[in-house]
């Protein structure tokens, strides 16, 4: 499959430029900055909290917000443009569909990554300056994991956009995918309780009796997986004051691998369905 780089770049540049023009990039940077600073104050109980505790609070917020942002950016990118007719003008140009798809992923992916990097980066500098303490390598790990979560949901939403015919159904499917990541944990707790586990003890933070299969949930819910990975990046075994012991196969490596699978399979599906789509 030959891919020419110039058309990919042209599409990526347009997607990025669009989001600069419509102020999405600057808004996202502001959102991430405010979010991190606020999380820091919450974690520091009214003063600027240190990086590790800040991230502990931030994970919960960003693992909800980042998927939403990615889905908003990606859900209409193919179905919406196909519906409006703009896509047929693009595809009538000397460009392959794979090039359009990659261009969109790269352009929108850059919007997500740049906003996260700048927003969380500036707040990281502020936190380090205020507390006089920094765990930069872990913090950068957290930033990278957040970017990866953003790219993951971008590829899922672009995949949805490529498969579904209409803008509105793509949005609906995006919402479903988001809620899957958000409620997967509850389903797992339900299964745990249903199989004789002590759900109350678990919710109160006692994970000692939890069977190994339970932790497979972090591979199925990218939101939970990302949060767990960020926690591991800081070498934390405590979350919200509770000590958590994970089986050895739940580690940074396997979680990142799961994220990559979650990202690459939808891209492959998106390519497959876009290629056979009538636009």
């Amino acid at each position, binding site marked *: 499959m030959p891919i*020419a780089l*110039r*058309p990919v770049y*042209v*599409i990526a*540049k*347009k997607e990025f430029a*669009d989001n600069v*023009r*419509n102020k999405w990039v600057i808004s996202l940077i502001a959102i991430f900055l405010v979010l991190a600073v606020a999380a820091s104050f919450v974690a520091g109980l009214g003063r600027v909290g240190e990086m590790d505790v800040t991230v502990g609070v931030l994970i919960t917020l960003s693992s909800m917000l980042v998927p939403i942002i990615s889905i908003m950016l990606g859900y209409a990118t193919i179905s919406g443009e196909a519906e*409006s*007719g*703009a896509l*047929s*003008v*693009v*595809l*009538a*140009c*000397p*460009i*392959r*569909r794979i090039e359009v798809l990659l261009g969109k992923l790269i352009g929108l992916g850059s919007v997500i990554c740049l906003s996260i990097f700048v927003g969380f980066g500036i707040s990281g500098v502020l936190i380090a300056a205020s507390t006089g303490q920094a765990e930069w390598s872990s913090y950068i790990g957290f930033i990278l994991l957040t970017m990866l979560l953003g790219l993951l949901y971008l590829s899922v939403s672009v995949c949805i956009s490529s498969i579904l015919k209409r803008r509105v159904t793509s949005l609906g499917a995006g919402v479903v995918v988001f809620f899957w990541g958000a409620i997967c944990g509850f389903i797992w707790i339900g299964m745990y309780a249903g199989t004789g586990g002590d759900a109350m003890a678990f919710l109160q933070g006692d994970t000692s009796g939890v069977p190994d299969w339970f932790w497979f949930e972090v591979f199925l819910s990218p939101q939970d997986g990302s949060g767990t990975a960020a926690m591991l990046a800081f070498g934390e075994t405590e979350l919200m004051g509770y000590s958590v012991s994970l089986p050895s196969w739940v580690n940074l490596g396997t979680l990142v691998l799961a994220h990559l699978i979650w990202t690459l399979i939808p891209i492959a599906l998106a390519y497959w369905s876009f*290629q*056979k789509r*009538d*636009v």
Partner: protein
Amino acid sequence: MTVNAFGSVIETIDLTKRFKDVLAVDSLSLKVRKGEIFGFLGPNGAGKSTTIKMVMGLFHPTSGSAFINGKPAGPDSVDLRRDIGFLPERISFYDNLTPTQTLNFYCELRGADKSVVPSLIGEVGLAHAANRKVGTFSKGMVQLLGVAQAMIGNPSIYIMDEPTGGLDARWVKAVRDKIRALNEQGATIIFSSHILSEVQALCHRIAIIDKGRLVVEGTVEDISDRLRIKPRLWIEASGVDQETISAIRSITGVEEVTVNDEALLVTCEAEARMKVMAVLRERDVAVRDFKTIDPSLEEAFVRLLSEKEGS
């Protein structure tokens, strides 16, 4: 690659597209020759857009194939599309861009020099709106921008789907003039329409399709001849009774008689015309005026379609 395609700019062979239970295009074989304006005519829903989209690689044919300059065309025929200016039906651009930004983007996609953008915008008469957002444009303006977009890189083939569809008279003229001018500069132009007068006025050759099937293909004269469309006699008269009509109908060479409030329309052979007038005089019908109406493609079209419906 096919030998059949030699010499034709666009060719389809048994091109077929089925959407679930609808056969939108049914074994369509067409040839468009170099340098001509080719009219692709048919009622709404005849399969014109579907055919065009298959040629452009936007739709995947169920079976059959399309060729551009003799080479098989599909979604990945990047090099073939380089030479085609395409104006889809109800073209849509990105609302948040200005015409300049829009054309810059398409120049980049086509690998063309962006310095032509201001002159392209001027050529279609949009210079006054060059920095307005396309989202604020009227339909006609979007269509003109579409024409400008199609002209990027000076393609030698233009494929336009209903280029004047839904436009008011002013824009229609602008688009038609542009089509003529491009053809005079040597471009081959294929455009679809459901308006006969338009096709009749612009095209060298025409293909009429209905329900996805080719009904007839040829020059305007060819099609009229082949369908043996006869001139009609238009007679302005009052007091025409049923008996008179029957009398006219019984004349040899008269095919059809229709009456409305003040006129009589008689489709007949040229030799029968005087006999019709004679019958009217015999019956003391006051004829105020009469003339013959030349055959039009419109008639051919309506007739063709109604024959098809009947069959």
